[in-house]
């Protein structure tokens, strides 16, 4: 594989950049693979990469219905954080933060990881107490957390509404300085390029239409481009999980919902951090191009449409304007939507299933992007070793049966309000 470096950049400049190698190939599916990963999104690509890199399993195919990186990894708001209270989520995400920090070097691809810090605003004394508790839990797990008072928040984000007579005054906030953002497409492309170079077949425009299961064991998959035999199959299909589960006669604790995001026109640098509104659900950061990247609530009803509806967008942006009034002056550039695999406790599932050789990776709700490296790493381990790693042991499928839920927000099973 051609290494991306300043020397190669200069060298290729002499030939007008027309002679770069393709970043990944377009192979015809083989008859049989050791492992087939369904879903060429961030998690699927990362899983294939870590299967090859950490477990030396390279006879692997990624089967993607559309094109790689065309789903949620290309539709998110690029926020990376590990500010969780529960041990399972905190330790898993912090492991991922380490992978993020070295990802650009590891993949030889600039993913533009920018640890600019995230601030969750608090709007009451009770919320400050809750944040103090969450911050302490984070620090016990080795995650950086700083509780900020009103004056400290004002110093960092003076453009927020600090006037006296607002409905939700800013009391302070919880900051994770090491959190940040990354270039989401580069994450997908970087993993794809490396996985391809190690022998993984990336097969696009290939839809899975069925599974070949006999005597409780998976033997392969049926696709729009023919049957493919496989010793092991991993599902990494986010919002399409229920559709494939139905073909396997499985009913999962997952509902598919629609989440929108939007960006404003680009403006000069104004916001250095990721900031979330604490009295509702709104988050904002500024991209390197200057656009304000914003998002918030789900549309609130089951949906497989990758496009949203205006009432929710209006509701979310009303919160944004309450938090930072200057946003009302900006023109909207783009809005888009993605479909989320909302689990019943808000936490993901990375586990084996009752079918031998079939592995499940789903339930990311809207926190899937930041989990990309840790999800791929632990899912690769689970597939290669046929047992869960301690990092994803809590993300079991049967926790809903045994009552070991990981309900970070305490919202219960109303997935559409979480």
């Amino acid at each position: 594989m051609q290494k991306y470096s300043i020397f190669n950049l200069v060298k290729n400049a002499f030939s007008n950049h027309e002679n770069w190698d393709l970043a990944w190939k377009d192979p015809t599916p083989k008859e049989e693979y050791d492992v087939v990963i369904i879903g060429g999104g961030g998690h699927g690509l990362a899983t294939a990469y870590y299967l090859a890199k950490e477990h030396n399993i390279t006879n692997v195919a990624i089967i993607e219905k559309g094109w790689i990186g065309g789903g949620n990894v290309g539709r998110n708001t690029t926020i990376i954080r590990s500010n969780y209270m529960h041990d399972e989520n905190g330790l898993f995400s912090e492991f991922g933060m380490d992978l993020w920090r070295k990802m650009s070097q590891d993949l030889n691809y600039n993913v533009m990881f920018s640890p600019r810090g995230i601030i969750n605003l608090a709007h009451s004394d009770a919320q400050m107490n809750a944040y103090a508790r969450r911050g302490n839990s984070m620090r016990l797990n080795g995650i950086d957390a700083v509780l900020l008072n009103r004056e400290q928040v004002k110093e960092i984000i003076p453009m927020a509404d600090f006037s006296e007579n607002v409905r939700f005054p800013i009391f302070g906030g919880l900051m994770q300085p090491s959190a940040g953002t990354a270039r989401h497409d580069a994450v997908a492309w970087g993993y794809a390029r490396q996985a391809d170079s190690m022998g993984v077949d990336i097969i696009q425009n290939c839809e899975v239409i069925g599974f070949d299961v006999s005597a409780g064991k998976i033997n392969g998959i049926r696709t729009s481009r023919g049957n493919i035999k496989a010793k092991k199959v991993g599902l990494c299909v986010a919002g399409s999980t229920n559709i494939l589960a139905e073909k396997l006669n499985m009913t999962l604790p997952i509902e598919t919902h629609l989440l929108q995001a939007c960006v404003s026109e680009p403006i000069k640098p104004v916001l250095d951090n990721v900031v979330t509104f604490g009295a509702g659900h709104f988050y904002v950061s500024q991209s390197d191009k200057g656009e304000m990247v914003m998002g918030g609530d789900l549309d609130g009803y089951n949906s497989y449409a990758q496009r949203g509806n205006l009432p929710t967008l209006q509701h979310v942006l009303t919160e944004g304007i309450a938090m930072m009034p200057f946003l009302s002056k900006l023109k909207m550039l783009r809005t888009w939507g993605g479909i989320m695999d909302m689990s019943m406790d808000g936490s993901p599932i990375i586990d084996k299933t009752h079918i031998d050789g079939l592995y499940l990776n789903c339930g990311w709700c809207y926190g899937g992007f930041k989990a990309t490296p840790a999800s791929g790493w632990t899912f690769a381990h689970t597939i290669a070793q046929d047992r869960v790693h301690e990092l994803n042991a809590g993300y079991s499928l049967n926790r809903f049966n045994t009552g070991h839920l990981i309900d970070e927000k305490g919202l219960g099973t109303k997935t559409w309000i979480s």
Partner: protein
Amino acid sequence: MLYINCPHCGMRSQNEFSYGGDASVKRPELNKEVSDQEWDNFVYNRKSLRGKHLELWQHISGCRQWIKVERDTATHEIFRTFKADEEVA
């Protein structure tokens, strides 16, 4: 904007309603032994169909009644609406 035909009030905008999830889920009968698996299916497991989906909505800013709505989860088209206690054929 979705428009939902409330069987009690007529056509209203989605802003007047709140969502209540899959309407095909049935609480287990309590006059017999209920297995963990049955509780699991009632509380957590969902088909989350792509296509026609029967779901509960509440006309929260209207008559406050719960209703059933048959809606397509891929196109958002609404086909039929029912009163909460109406049987859906």
